[in-house]
């Protein structure tokens, strides 16, 4: 049977406890797997991949001129999270996203947290994604991050840690919805009896969130999704979400700003747009204000936002909250704005910007993970224990040249999960990206994207670098 020779190798495993016993919430899954042969499972996967490719559920690999589309590898053994564990995640995320939104309001208004010296002023004001243009500009409902994808990992003892807040344009939610559809085909009976919480309401919750932030609380606002275009790796997701919400998917060239109002070009002339769910980074939004060479943006968009005639989700300038240096201060934010202890812990972080931390980092480079503050997707990263001497020295130089741009963390543990591999089922490292919507209330999609590093021993889960995904089952309270 598939799991007969499964070895947790002493690491925290999602399905098996340290003593080798299957965790109770995985019992049904295990029994089902025991009835399947490797061949049967393989066959199911092949069918699914064909289906995905046919439906165009793909992502585009960067750096490939042809824009090769690949299916995001999908692993059929789902990750299962029991209700009580999920409750902690949910509470922790609501708390965290609330604090981040209060922080963003603060840094774009009175900057009390800086004046009270909880966070050093220069950390925020020097962040690459801080937008002084938006100081003292009010955003509808005072919400900045409407859609957040927070990356969680599990520590050695199984407690969840926040690894990263993605508060700009987090992607991946369409895979959650598609993976769920796939799982219903792979394990129909099991799915029916396991008591899995539905993820179907995401699109309508997202639309509700967008409508909620319409300027002047306008009823029946016109919402659109702004995409960089169909060459973008996440285009499939953009189109998927727009379709699910029943809103137009637009590119920058479809929009035009006239008299500080935004309109879209239609075959019947111009139509006013009230809310833009943008999947385009700040830099590209408006060539008049940010990158002048942007061909993807809308000239004049920023002026329309500043005039309060159109709402953006997420707001401009949220990047200052998911900067990796800011990350180090989120626990202090929670204490400051909410007077609470963080429900979800995070990874200890050393700041190269700080003199004491810097010398520690430089002394311990081979043991640490170094990250550039403003990069994402696994780019600009040094994994000390796995790096060559040259790489370590290269990063030493980079850190010394621009300390503000680097942080370091101890090597973190990713939990492992049984995953279908070539020969058999083996443990692979996984993370979890739940999706948070902040509108009239904060919704956490019960599920999320479980990314899995398909290479043995690897902890890089990014789809562009050999990661795959699993469906995530959050169970109902029994």
């Amino acid at each position: 049977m598939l799991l007969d020779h499964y070895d947790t190798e002493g690491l925290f495993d999602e399905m098996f406890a340290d003593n080798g016993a299957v965790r109770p919430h995985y019992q049904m899954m295990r029994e089902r797997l025991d009835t399947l042969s490797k061949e049967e499972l393989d066959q199911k996967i092949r069918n699914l991949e064909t289906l995905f490719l046919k439906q165009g559920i793909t992502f585009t690999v960067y750096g490939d001129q042809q824009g090769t589309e690949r299916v995001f590898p999908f692993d059929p053994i789902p990750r299962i999270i029991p209700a009580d564990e999920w409750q902690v995640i949910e509470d922790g995320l609501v708390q965290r996203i609330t604090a981040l939104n209060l922080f963003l309001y603060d840094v774009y208004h009175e900057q009390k947290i800086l004046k009270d010296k909880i966070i050093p002023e220069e950390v925020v004001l020097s962040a690459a994604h801080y937008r002084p243009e938006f100081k003292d500009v009010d955003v509808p409902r005072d919400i900045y991050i409407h859609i957040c994808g927070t990356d969680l990992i599990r520590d050695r003892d199984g407690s969840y840690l926040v690894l990263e807040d993605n508060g700009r344009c987090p992607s991946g939610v369409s895979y959650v919805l598609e993976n769920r559809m796939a799982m219903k085909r792979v394990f129909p009976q099991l799915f029916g009896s396991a008591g899995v919480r539905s993820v179907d309401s995401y699109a309508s919750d997202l639309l509700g969130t967008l409508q909620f932030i319409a300027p002047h609380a306008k009823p029946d606002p016109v919402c659109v999704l702004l995409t960089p275009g169909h060459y973008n790796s996440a285009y499939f997701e953009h189109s998927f979400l727009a379709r699910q919400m029943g809103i137009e998917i637009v590119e920058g060239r479809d929009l035009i700003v006239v008299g500080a109002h935004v309109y879209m070009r239609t075959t019947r002339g111009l139509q006013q747009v009230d809310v833009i769910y943008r999947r385009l980074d700040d830099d590209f939004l408006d060539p008049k204000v940010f990158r002048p060479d942007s061909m993807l943006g809308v000239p004049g968009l920023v002026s329309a936002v500043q005039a309060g005639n159109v709402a953006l989700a997420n707001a401009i300038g949220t990047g200052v909250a998911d900067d990796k240096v800011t990350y180090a201060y989120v626990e202090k934010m929670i204490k400051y704005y909410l007077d609470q202890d963080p429900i979800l812990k995070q990874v200890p972080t050393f700041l190269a910007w700080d003199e004491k931390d810097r010398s520690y980092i430089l002394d311990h480079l081979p043991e640490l993970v170094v990250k550039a503050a403003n990069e994402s997707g696994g780019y600009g990263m040094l994994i000390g224990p796995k790096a060559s001497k040259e790489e370590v020295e290269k990063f030493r130089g980079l850190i010394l040249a621009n300390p503000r741009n680097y942080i370091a963390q101890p090597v973190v543990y990713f939990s492992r999960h049984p995953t279908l591999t070539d020969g058999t089922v083996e443990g692979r490292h996984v993370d979890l990206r739940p999706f948070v919507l902040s509108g009239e209330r904060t919704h956490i999609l019960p599920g999320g994207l479980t990314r899995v590093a398909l290479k043995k021993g690897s902890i890089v889960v990014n789809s562009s670098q050999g990661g795959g995904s699993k469906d995530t089952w959050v169970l109902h309270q029994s």
Partner: protein
Amino acid sequence: MLSRVADNLYWMARFMERAENLARLLQASNELLLDGETMGSRSLNDYWDPVLIATAMEDQFAQLYPQGTVADVGFFMTLHEGNPDAITMCLRQARENARTVRDQISDEMWTELNDLYLFITAPHTLKLFQMSPQSVYDRIISGSLLFHGITDATLARTEGWQFIQLGKYLERADKTSRFLDIRVHSAQTGNALDSFQWTCILRSASAFGTYRAEFGGEPVAEGVIDLLMFSIDFPRSVRYCIRRLDGHLHAISGTPAGTYGNTAERVSGRLLAQLNFGCSSEVLARGLQDYTDDVQTILNDIGQHIFETYVLLPQDQLSVTFIPSADTQQRRWVELQQQQQQQQQQQQQQ
């Protein structure tokens, strides 16, 4: 609907239709070639040069294949990625246009189009092509027919559907008129058009059977022109296509038939009148090439006016920064944009 979406749907249909027509042309030429081989005497290139000339790719072909053979032409026109007008590239464009507006078309339409594209780009298709090009053309033609059929069976008759029809009929009218004058080039090099070549033309438009049923006997110029240019009921005749085009233009604008509300309607109405009351003797008196050139110019005009009416806004016509999303002239722009969209990706994928 969004102007760009209308534009994408229109071009999706045009490129699909273009791929299909190209496949028909190549298939017919190929058949001719097989017959030609048995005759032996004729210069085989006579059959292929017009194909290259008609698509204005002869220079590029000569550059890539200085010693070009007949087989090279077939590959060049079908699968060569360096030829922007090759069938595979038409299908890619059709698919790219469809991909941008996936939320506007039915899943079935997308699946069929994507399937066809995956077929033409698959490695085994190249092998298949080398062994039996006809079966590759068959697949493309049936794929396109299936696509149009699925479109008719699954898509609501909204504005988007109307734009798809515009693209389909405009492209089809253009291609039929080109098939008509494609052999004129070889005629000018000294060989008179014989029934053999008219047969090839009819086959390119799937009109051979219809011709036989209607006119009987070996094809002659008058009959072929009457069928392909002026037939009121043959679905690939220029007149038929323009009649449909005119109908869809009026359905979009809501202007009553027989009147016009924009230039595209005016020009298409005038062309329709010309075709309604034209005949083959008039064409031959004027010269076939002259006549078809004229028709093609008007078709281009209609395309341009559709673009200006529904895609370009008054503001855009004043500024030069807006570059349309359609044909080959702005590939450069598309490349730049593609580059930025990918830059996006690097920062965005988290």
